[in-house]
């Protein structure tokens, strides 16, 4: 078991390394060079050469990559090309909003959607089940900004509650007023991940429900509620934990659109700005942070699924 987990972590680290290679060399597809962006078009050749040397751009790509990775691992993300400020300073100002929204969303969305999904699995084919399915099928295929627009229409325009932009800083607010502050972004992300979570948790329970031991329990006359809660749910926990981790990983991408939609500063708006100003250093550093979070959550999903399922641990 331990060796298997270590093996998975090893695979995860290789994946992270591959991700860093993709991100680093991905931004180097074109010869467009950071020294030129830093100095502008009018820079003289001599200035450019000096700047290249200072930034380490005169070395080979492999050396640049190794240096960059070493700096990244020791917490030095480099200096922004667009604003000449260390990336870590830019992040320090903004990471809270992104973290708050993701964490607050998962606190609400995960338990609620699991409960809804399991309830739907308890009464498959009922009106409740069908309506829930219809809503989640619709929302899962719709873009985040459509969900956000519906919520703004309902809360801001129809009910006249709040504002379509998130303004001000959430610093020093309690948990409850934090939810009020980020109400619309959190609601949007919750709907988006709930539509997936409900379907997948329902499927996980129904999947277990079709196994022979459940049939046995039905035949010996165990009440349906008890079958779900005592027999099926225990075996569905593994896949459900897996599904939860996958959906938390999804927040990494969902948060990008939501931050831009509601116009508040966060890491996602920062990376979008970096792309617009072609600030490679910023895109590389932040891209790594987002992708590593994603890889770690995926790894957690993977470990959870086989930790809970002996059959995955001992493949035939």
């Amino acid at each position, binding site marked *: 078991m331990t060796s298997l987990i270590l093996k998975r972590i090893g695979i995860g680290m290789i994946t992270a390394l591959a991700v860093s290679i993709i*991100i680093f060399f991905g931004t180097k*597809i074109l010869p467009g060079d950071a020294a030129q962006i830093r100095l502008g078009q009018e820079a003289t050749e001599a200035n450019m050469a000096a700047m290249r040397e200072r930034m380490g751009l005169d070395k080979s790509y492999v050396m640049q990559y190794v240096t960059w990775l070493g700096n990244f691992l020791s917490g030095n993300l480099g200096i922004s090309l667009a604003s000449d400020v260390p990336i870590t300073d830019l992040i320090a100002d903004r990471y809270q909003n992104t973290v708050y929204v993701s964490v607050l969303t998962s606190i609400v969305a995960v338990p609620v959607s699991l409960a809804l999904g399991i309830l739907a699995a308890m009464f498959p084919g009922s009106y409740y089940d069908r309506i829930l399915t219809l809503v989640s099928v619709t929302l899962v295929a719709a*873009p985040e900004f*459509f969900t956000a627009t519906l919520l703004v*229409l309902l809360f801001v325009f129809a009910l006249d509650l709040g504002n379509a*932009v998130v303004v001000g800083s959430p610093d020093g607010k309690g948990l409850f007023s934090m939810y009020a502050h980020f109400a619309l972004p959190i609601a949007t992300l919750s709907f988006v991940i709930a539509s997936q979570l409900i379907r997948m948790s329902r499927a996980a329970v*129904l999947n277990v429900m079709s196994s022979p031991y459940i049939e046995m329990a039905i035949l010996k006359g165990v009440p349906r509620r008890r079958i779900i809660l005592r027999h099926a749910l225990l075996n569905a926990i593994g896949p459900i934990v897996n599904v939860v981790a996958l959906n938390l990983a999804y927040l990494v991408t969902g948060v990008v659109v939501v931050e831009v939609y509601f116009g508040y500063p966060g890491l996602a708006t920062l990376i979008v700005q*970096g792309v617009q100003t072609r600030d490679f250093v910023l895109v590389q550093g932040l891209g790594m942070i987002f*992708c590593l979070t994603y890889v770690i959550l995926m790894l957690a999903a993977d470990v959870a699924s086989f930790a809970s*399922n002996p059959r995955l641990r001992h493949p035939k």
Partner: protein
Amino acid sequence: MSNSDPLEHFVAPYDDSVSFDELPDAPPTTGYRPSIMGWIGITVAVFWLAVALIGPFIAPYGENALPFPDAYSEFQSPRSGAWLGTDVEDRDVLSRIMFGAGRTIGISLSATLLAYLTGVVLGIGAAVSGPRVDMAMSRINDAFLSLPTIMLGLVVVAAVGSSIPVLIVTAGLIYASVVFRLSRAIGMEIMVMDFVEAAKVRGEGRWWIITREIWPNARMPLITDFGLRLIYVILFISSLSFLGLGVQPPKADWGSMVRDNLGALQYGGSIISVVAPALAIASLTVGINLIVDDVSAHGGGKLSKRM
């Protein structure tokens, strides 16, 4: 593959990678009759396809025309002559949706076709090649699959800038990795079937096996999945455009229209300029989803059971 654990599909990453649960079953090749939901989906999809094709010719105004120069004001409410009002630069929203339809749908369709061309060729190639080639190709592919698609998109756009060809190639290659995994899985599954074994024993060449044994059996699940993949590509392209990194102004596309007109929600003005393009994307993707679901359910597919 065939005796894989039923829970294995939960190991797959979130939305756009293939889980075994998500493999659409082969629908019957003949006698598909859409249900009511299927018809709704088909109607919506055909409607948007028609708008994409003829929209620019029947649009009441030009893409960037200012229809009411005398009454210039942003976000005008709908009125006779401008049925969906005007946008942030006082352009006709209806006309821009008609121009944008072709761009959003055209880019997404081309990208999905590219993804399929690349993914299917490489995936089936990996399935019929030996374990070494397969292993190497799968590992490289897994590295791409382990990145969130939108981040890959951001990195590419940061490096080469955004233009329509770049969008098509980027989305096409990103989603090719998903198609690769799917077609490889399907190819592997078919490779161990008795009839392939028989063909090999008969002494048929690799090309025969691909075209005569694998392709006829892999075709229908792949076509069903095409619809699903098209949805994800539309969402990907629209999200990039929404972030201002996709189709560049003054060209209209649905995602960038939502972004351009966000001010209407925030500072007041005709909100239809935001609602209309957002609704256009959602209706298209949900419509395609209804078709995919219906086709798959018709074949007694897992998709319908899962829903």
